[in-house]
């Protein structure tokens, strides 16, 4: 497995210029997570409207993979319902673990994360943002659309 397959240009681009970086002031959900293996930390803030993600930001310290993954995630989940996101997270996990090919159209930029499946210890890096998102959604009341701020 070559480095270039893991660190694709688009991934490095998200790492160097992360999208939606920061904190949402009027967020419905703030969720924080850590990857104990490498000390990576991430904080996600989320606005939910009518059961759909209205806005999202992330910030934190981390490696290129966890940062790029978080950045791509913020772009991918906007407008999605909580139910859809949950399925998407499941899907992503399978793709990252190399258990599934994944639909290129649905994946978009996220396609660039697929190389991670060849680097087992790095899968946790790529999944961190997604796990934190899922956790935040659950805390926000799951698929029921109910809200709760933390």
């Amino acid at each position, binding site marked *: *497995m*070559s*480095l270039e397959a*893991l*660190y694709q240009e688009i991934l*490095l681009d998200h*790492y*160097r210029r992360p999208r939606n970086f920061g904190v949402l002031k009027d967020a419905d959900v703030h969720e924080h997570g850590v990857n104990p*293996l*490498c*000390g*990576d*930390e991430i904080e996600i803030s989320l606005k939910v409207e009518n059961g759909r993600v209205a806005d999202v930001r992330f910030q934190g*310290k*981390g*490696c*290129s*993979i966890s940062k790029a993954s978080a950045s791509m995630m913020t772009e991918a989940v906007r407008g999605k319902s909580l139910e859809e996101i949950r399925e998407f997270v499941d899907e992503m996990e399978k793709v990252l673990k190399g258990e599934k090919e994944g639909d290129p159209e649905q994946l978009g930029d996220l396609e660039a994360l697929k190389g991670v499946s060849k*680097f087992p210890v*790095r899968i946790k*890096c790529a999944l961190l943002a997604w796990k934190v998102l899922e956790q935040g959604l659950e805390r926000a009341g799951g698929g029921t659309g109910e809200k709760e701020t933390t």
Partner: protein
Amino acid sequence: MIQTATKDASGRLLPVDTIRKAFPIFSSPEWRELVYLDNAATTQRPQRVLDAIAGYYADSNANVHRGAYALSEKSTGLYESARELVGRFVGAPSPRQVVFTKNATEALNLVAYAWALPRLQPGLQILVTQMEHHSNLVPWQVLAQRTGATLAYVRVDDSGHLDLDDLRQKLRKPTLLVAVTQASNVLGTLNPVARVVELAKEAGAAVVVDGAQSVPHVPVDFGELGCDFLAFSGHKMLGPMGIGVLVAKEERLEEAEPFLYGGDMIATVDWHQSTWNELPWKFEAGTPNVAGAVGLAEAVRFLQEVGLERIAEHDRALTELAYDGLAQIDGVRIFGPPPDERVGLVAFDVDGVHPHDLATFLDARGIAIRAGHHCAEPLMKRLGVVATARASFYLYNSPDDVEALIEGVKAAKEFFSP
């Protein structure tokens, strides 16, 4: 077998080419080219050690101590002479003071459960340094929580040295024990353990020394250190996994409770009362790892033939090269003291390159380093980082390995933050 007399041009390096031939992994098709710089995590094993293990199983294998037949006597003899050899290697006055465990971590937990736990209470203090590995830290943290004793930290200063004034200060409170690593697995710092012991003794505190990173790399003498307990692991000094050692003052072992209970550690077992075996067997419950002890003894012989002084010198020469080379790269920050005050490892970070990315990047170039908190999270907090990269050396590493590391770091910087 190993040419210890021939020094290379620089006069401080070991004959690495010859040494590498003794390690099968460096001639395996898969890893022949590997630049292995994660020796602080575990070392590679020479063929001799593998042969000693297989040889034990092929012509001496039986359970020890209780077998009234020749094979068992042979096995017992090998086990006990491994104990003597390993004990002598670190200056243990008697084999009675040498307990085999499964690793350094178990050895440290043994001290915690068997000796410290029954002695701790509110008002008493455990002192650990800010640079301890989790194995010499978490047991003490948990004991403090369980007993109401206080856990306090001895400061590490900005240059990566232990703050002895802080130690002196903190020792004013009633202290049961001081837990200190002889060599930090992150900073490389070689701590002045004998001095720590002096101060602790004055204050009536016992001292537990973590020798996991020192015993493999520098000559260590238990008697000279004067400490109460010394723990280390076989797998970090060319020995097999699954064998570690606790050396202790006889008095401490005598007064300690047993730790693991079961076969071999008892003298007599009645329905509701048992008595314990003599030292050191009182602390070795169940079938011991005889093959592991035999393998470790062979590793010690190998190290003795090369010579610990020479290994220390070799490590240091490589460390200087690495330190100087890395320090010259823009954006690289090295943690810990200068090379002549440390064992053979360098932890660092690179501006704009996460340690994990660096490790993956170097791995693709065939260079194995470690990235992470190195089982020393509190120290990471003290240093203000979440993770670092670490390269650690041993007797089979060459200046070329160091060169590959430095070039790799430069390339990674170029790649990730051009």
